[in-house]
């Protein structure tokens, strides 16, 4: 299972209990395939992390894992093995902005 940590506002929106979401991801584990699985499990998150249509990451959303900022990696690049194995979560967070 893949572990995903969501920002508090999106946990509330998706009515997620607890801190992390557990997902099954078919095939290679990439940002794109992980977000596809996340949005399939929680359709209310469509448009909240990446734009409808273009599927581009929203400007103030960041992806962190294994102490690395993966926000600017191509969506189809493989996530770290530790994320794919479930040892570490992919952290989705809202960037600090606006004070």
């Amino acid at each position: 299972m893949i572990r995903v940590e969501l920002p508090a506002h999106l946990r509330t929106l998706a009515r997620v209990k607890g801190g992390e979401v557990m997902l099954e991801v078919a095939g290679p584990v990439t940002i794109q395939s992980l977000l596809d699985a996340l949005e399939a499990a929680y359709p209310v998150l469509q448009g909240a992390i990446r734009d409808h249509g273009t599927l581009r990451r929203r400007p103030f959303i960041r992806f962190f894992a294994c102490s690395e900022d993966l926000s600017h990696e191509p969506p189809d690049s493989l996530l770290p093995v530790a994320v794919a194995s479930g040892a570490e979560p992919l952290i989705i967070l809202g960037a600090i902005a606006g004070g």
Partner: protein
Amino acid sequence: MSHVRVLVGTRKGAFILTADGKREDWEISGPHFAGWEIYHIKGSPVDPNRIFASQSSGWFGQVIQRSNDGGKTWEAVGNKFAYDGVPGTHQWYDGTAHPWEFKRVWHLEPSLTEADMVYAGVEDAALFRSTDAGQTWEEISGLRKHGTGPHWQPGAGGMCLHTIILDPSNTGRIYIAISAAGAFRTDDGGATWKPINKGLYSKYIPDPTAEVGHCVHHVAMHRSRPNVLFMQKHWDVMRSDDAGDYWQEVSGNLPTDFGFVIDVHAHEPETIYVVPIKSDGEHFPLDGKLRVYRSRVGGNEWEPLTNGLPQSDCYVNVLRDAMAVDTLDSCGVYFGTTGGQVYASADAGDTWKPIVRDLPAVLSVEVQTLP
């Protein structure tokens, strides 16, 4: 006994204020959607327990919420607002062409006749409609494509479609207003549109009498006279007696004719309300005195309403969608401020009381009058 439900959108959530017909003792629920901007929240006239809310965030984008039980429980519905076809460009602040980009929903206007139909006015300016209670949205693209769209330009708050008025006597007629493009009307349900800005004079644009480019802040109509419109423009209060074909200024003796809100008494179609704001550079009341001005003759002659409102050191603003009226026999008038106060008058403006004083900045106020 009748009662009222006041729907308040703020910078940090929605609040629902309820009272019986006396409008003295209020219950406050919220914050709903805490931490999110609620640009607008409005109930269906067909099914008052169906309420739609526009929830948005600079981080997480747009969410539309729907309640079927008067705001007790909510369900997120469709948030995909895709412009029809290739969106094209409008003017940017510096006059260059800028691609149309969806940012948020400013205003939700439920249908007067169908509980599942609701209109959404969005930034960048466009009109959308849902016929399945908000699950899916389709642009009424005749507005954006009628010809003047490439010349529209954002106001300071963005290029927003903020006003939607449905004509109760003519299902094909809709009025909308955009900052800073102006007012527009369709007579065929949205297929074709025309600018209705003749008579407006805006000295801050290159051609003060241009067909489009006017910063219309809000428009109001009384349902008994759908051809009569009242407008608070960036500067100037205006009225039209021919469905917007021509406007005349009715600012009259107002101490300043800048402002955002305008509304009409529920039972007196010539009684209108505005909240004069000192200037576009200052965005607070003149002399630190929060005054609603009422005209009982459709404009030009205005009286200040101050009883119960702060008359010193008040520097709040009242934003364009933050005034509403109820339809009880003694018409109630409500408005919210950027200081978080919601004021109510149960006697058509003669006296005022704050329902609540310390909410986040108020973006919108709507009222439902319930049996």
